[in-house]
């Protein structure tokens, strides 16, 4: 049955079923090999592309490994102070209610220093999308413990493993914001398998659709590996993530109103 089709016959523009969206720039991503940030970036940009809203979309990325997101996302962007993206985005969205606004925040950023700004933006019901990349660690600064670091997990500031006695339990910001009336769509996803990627993208799409409908905060956590911080290969880190992160941070939709 095997037909002898040559590669050249397949690799033709008209046969292209997947290529890079024009809303990712040509700059090579600054992330470590296998880091989840890259895929998360792509999904947001694909959604913006597909919804054709790039002209009206502004992104807000605070510090963290994704501080240079503006080098890769081909839309207008503001770099925000550590933890303050929800406030910065609020300030913007209130004067530009018809623009699409998303923040892109790490767990150190959103769940530590930015706790107040996150909760209050969610509580006010700002009509924005919050993308929350939870890799359980401070990636950019060299793998320090984050509020999200799992019990027993080693990091450069919990070299013998996080203990509940010293640092408490890992904080589930997503569960918290889901309790607030200001959030309308709250979900936790991952980007480690093709099907996870598809689901994550759907959620991101929904979050932008929600903005159109003035629905308040859409909050999407993406559990991702920080293989450098975890000191594992990308493949192993994803396995570790499935085994250890997902039980504590279960994937799924927490709220959809």
């Amino acid at each position, binding site marked *: 049955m095997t037909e002898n089709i040559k590669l050249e016959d397949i690799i033709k523009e008209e046969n292209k079923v997947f290529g890079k969206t024009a809303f990712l720039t040509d700059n090579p991503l600054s992330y*470590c*090999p296998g880091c989840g940030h890259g895929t998360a970036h792509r999904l947001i940009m694909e959604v913006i592309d597909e919804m054709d809203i790039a002209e009206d979309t502004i992104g807000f990325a605070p510090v963290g490994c994704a501080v240079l997101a503006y080098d890769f996302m081909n839309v207008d962007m503001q770099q925000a102070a550590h933890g303050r993206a929800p406030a910065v985005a609020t300030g913007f969205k209130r004067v530009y209610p018809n623009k699409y606004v998303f923040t892109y925040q790490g767990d150190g950023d959103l769940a530590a220093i930015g706790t107040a700004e996150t909760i209050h933006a969610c509580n006010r019901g700002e009509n924005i999308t919050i993308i929350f990349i939870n890799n359980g660690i401070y990636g*950019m600064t060299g793998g320090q413990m984050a509020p999200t670091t799992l019990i027993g997990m080693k990091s450069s500031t919990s070299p013998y493993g996080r203990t509940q006695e010293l640092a408490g339990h890992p904080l589930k910001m997503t569960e918290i914001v889901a309790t607030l009336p200001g959030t309308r769509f709250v979900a936790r996803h991952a980007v480690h398998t093709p099907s996870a990627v598809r689901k994550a993208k759907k959620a991101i799409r929904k979050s932008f659709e929600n903005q159109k409908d003035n629905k308040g905060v859409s909050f999407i956590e993406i559990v991702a590996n920080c293989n*450098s911080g975890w000191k594992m290969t990308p493949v192993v880190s994803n396995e570790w993530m499935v085994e250890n992160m997902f039980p504590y941070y279960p994937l799924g939709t927490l709220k959809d109103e």
Partner: protein
Amino acid sequence: MTEEIIIAGFGGQGVLSMGKILAYSGIMQNQEVSWMPAYGPEMRGGTANVTVIVSDGRISSPILTDYDTAIILNQQSMDKFESTVKPGGTLLYDPNGIIKHPTRTDINIYKVEAAKEAADMGVPRGFNMIVLGAYLKIKPIVEVANVGKGLKKSLPERHHHTIPMNEKAFKRGLEIVQTVSALV
């Protein structure tokens, strides 16, 4: 005596710890030392370099713009540091991955096939000790015995089992360094 050295290569080649061992070796013979890395987020998987100064007297600036010796371990570093060797100074490099070899004629140039040798010896982590051996062969600023002591000091207890391997690699470095072009 003051020797001002830049060691430059990829992250992961052991550039920083090589500098540390060298500095510790200096301490073992009562010299003043300083070790100043270039730091930054690009360190991760990117380039790494460290300035080491070993001196009989007080060290002023730990940061330099030209050096008595440059130890160069990849092409990027060659591009950046070949020109920073003082006239009459020394450049030691590993030719592995080097496309544009050094061309200066006012300095002493040596090479050491450390990457290849480390692979051949089956001790990839011994790479930097081979380079260090090569360097100290050319410029015996610290005594070999003190390198052993410095090595021990610079390693945390739990890594002391690697000392024999490292010493073997170091000795190999002493042997295999080659002169490319020496002044006079």
